[in-house]
């Protein structure tokens, strides 16, 4: 493209923006815009091939809704910066719905912003909001990915020859621990001898350490690998290279492992964002609490890859059918891997809020959370 066209267009854009910026000096003008402006905050780059990208892609559902304007901001740390980013969206651009997509945004930052701006609606992507305890204009939405990990586990339990499944995890927090335990429970439901070994890397994106952890797990005899880190690419590719099989996380990693990929756990954020879009189209407020798993089509498993054998496919499909019918995953009493009874009841509903704060590694998991 010739340079003069570049510069002329840029100049016109700039001039227009200058006028707009002058006008926006008065927040009331910005507020007067019609329609819904949705501000979305991401904790990392939105093309990270992981958590943030899963959200950013699904947001497309909302983008297509008439009268909706989307404003996005990436790499916002879980500090005062996120409160100010949300306020900036509200004050300077008239955002009236804020979607905060990282765990650490909620308390105190999003809660404070919600109190300060009662007319703005805020929603947070984790099951943390509680009615009465937190402001009414705040709320949560979440897909219970542990169900898809459970299905992963079922497939893995029938695929492993060594009875050892490896799991590379970032940090010992509830959502990660629940996914780890769910893989084991899935595997044990079809293969009582299955064990799962976990290595924590200590942070969400440490590619070299993830590769080291994957190699260490393979060295320890694991013949199936899965993970819960920001981007599973390194773990899946390492497994493929070492000639063992793998299970995905967060998005489809099937193309990364053409030989050994079995299946993977994926969010279906678009189901939730579609619920939001429908509410907006009808002029309603989006619901305070939207969550679900297989029962409400909010998670899925990646289409089976070449690593999935017939028995594993069948068992996984049966498990999915059970989950769609809300059959409980957890049959108690459940012991942790130190022998303490941690879940005493005979069975737990898949969405029991006791499970949201899961803080143990189940019996059969090799590893420790401290």
């Amino acid at each position, binding site marked *: 493209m010739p340079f003069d066209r570049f510069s002329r267009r840029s100049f016109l854009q700039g001039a227009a923006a200058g006028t707009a910026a002058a006008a926006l000096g008065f927040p009331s003008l910005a507020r007067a815009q019609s329609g819904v402006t949705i501000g979305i905050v991401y904790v990392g780059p939105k093309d990270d091939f992981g958590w943030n990208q899963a959200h950013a892609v699904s947001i497309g559902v909302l983008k297509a809704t008439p009268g909706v304007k989307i404003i996005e901001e990436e790499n916002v740390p879980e500090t005062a910066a996120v409160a100010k980013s949300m306020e900036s969206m509200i004050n300077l651009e008239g955002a009236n719905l804020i979607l905060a997509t990282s765990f650490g945004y909620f308390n105190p930052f999003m809660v404070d912003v919600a109190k300060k701006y009662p007319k703005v609606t805020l929603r947070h992507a984790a099951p943390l909001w509680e009615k009465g305890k937190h402001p009414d204009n705040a709320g949560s939405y979440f897909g219970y990915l542990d169900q898809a990990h459970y299905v992963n586990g079922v497939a893995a339990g029938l695929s492993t020859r060594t009875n050892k499944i490896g799991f590379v995890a970032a940090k010992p927090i509830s959502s990660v621990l629940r996914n780890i335990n769910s893989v084991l429970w899935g595997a044990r439901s079809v293969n009582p001898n299955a064990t799962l070994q976990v290595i924590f890397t200590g942070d969400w994106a440490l590619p070299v350490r993830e590769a*080291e952890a994957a190699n260490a797990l393979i060295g320890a005899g694991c013949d199936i690998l899965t993970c819960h880190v920001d981007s599973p690419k390194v773990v899946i590719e390492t497994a493929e290279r070492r000639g063992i099989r793998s299970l995905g996380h967060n998005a489809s990693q099937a193309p990364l492992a053409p030989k050994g990929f079995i299946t993977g756990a994926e969010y279906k954020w678009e189901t939730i964002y579609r619920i939001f879009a429908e509410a907006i189209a009808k002029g309603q407020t989006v619901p305070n609490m939207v969550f679900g798993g297989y029962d409400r089509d909010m998670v899925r498993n990646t289409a089976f890859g070449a690593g999935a054998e017939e028995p594993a496919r069948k068992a996984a499909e049966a498990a999915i059918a059970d989950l769609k019918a809300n059959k409980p995953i957890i049959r108690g009493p459940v012991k942790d891997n130190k022998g303490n009874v941690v879940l005493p009841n005979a069975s737990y509903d898949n969405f029991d809020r006791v499970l949201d704060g899961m803080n143990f590694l189940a019996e059969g998991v090799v590893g420790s959370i401290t």
Partner: protein
Amino acid sequence: MDGSSALVTVLAAMIGGAIRVSTPFLFVALGEMLTERSGRINLGLEGTLVLGAMSGYAISYHTGSPWLGLLVAGFAGMMMGTLHALICRLPKVNDIAVGIALMLFGLGIAFFLGKAYIQPTAPRLGSIPLGFWSSNPQIEQALEINPLFLIGIALAFFLAWALKNTRPGLILRVTGDSEAAARALGHPVMLIRLMATAAGGFLAGIGGAFLSLYYPGSWNEGLSSGQGLMAVALVIFARWDPIRCLYAAMLFGAAGALGPSLQAIGITQGYYFFNAAPYILTLFLMIGSAGSKKALRDAPGELALTR
């Protein structure tokens, strides 16, 4: 798992780790060693490393040739080194601070241009199965070696020889030890430093491409996690000697593998400290070696670090 097989697992992992993880350390350290031998310090090699990783991956993805990517990564690194040298040749400019600035700058470019390459898979560099003789899969795996590792070892020995026995080696050492002496001998001090810093940048770029094109063999923004910075520290306790750089890089690789492999045999307590082992190790080695008379004798006289 019984004790002895656990020990074998950890040892195999650490040897494997030394081989897999040490290569980027080795290249960056050798590059920084050259630069520091000329009397300058380039703290910006972290940015150079990441830029090399990104550009190598991008070129490999577009052309299908990882070796071409490697070369381009080296040249990108060389440009960064040249920039450092050109700014530092201005009087009154602090080379340590320029390094920090160049680190931010390199990370900025790499992240800005690298967005499009996070998702695609680029062709990787191949490896040589040197462990074919063993029936133990762990040993076999540990000895799966990338040619760059061998090139790095050869380079360390070559540089050790060249610094002692060749005329360019001598000129480089004189320039680093005493600018006045180099000028008196009629050597173009600024040109020599420019070449040394550019060469250092080239090697750091290669080190970065190893990360993205071989191990872990993928590009994203968290790829390096401070390896370029640690390599600079490594040069100091290797006391500016290429062979000791090689040992130090191997030690770092092994220390990096310690955390995950201990967890693999069930030692999980305090994994944060095992993961921080390379940093703690570096600090203690620096404390142990830096203050000695030997270290002061080996240090290039013009180096801002030791003044």
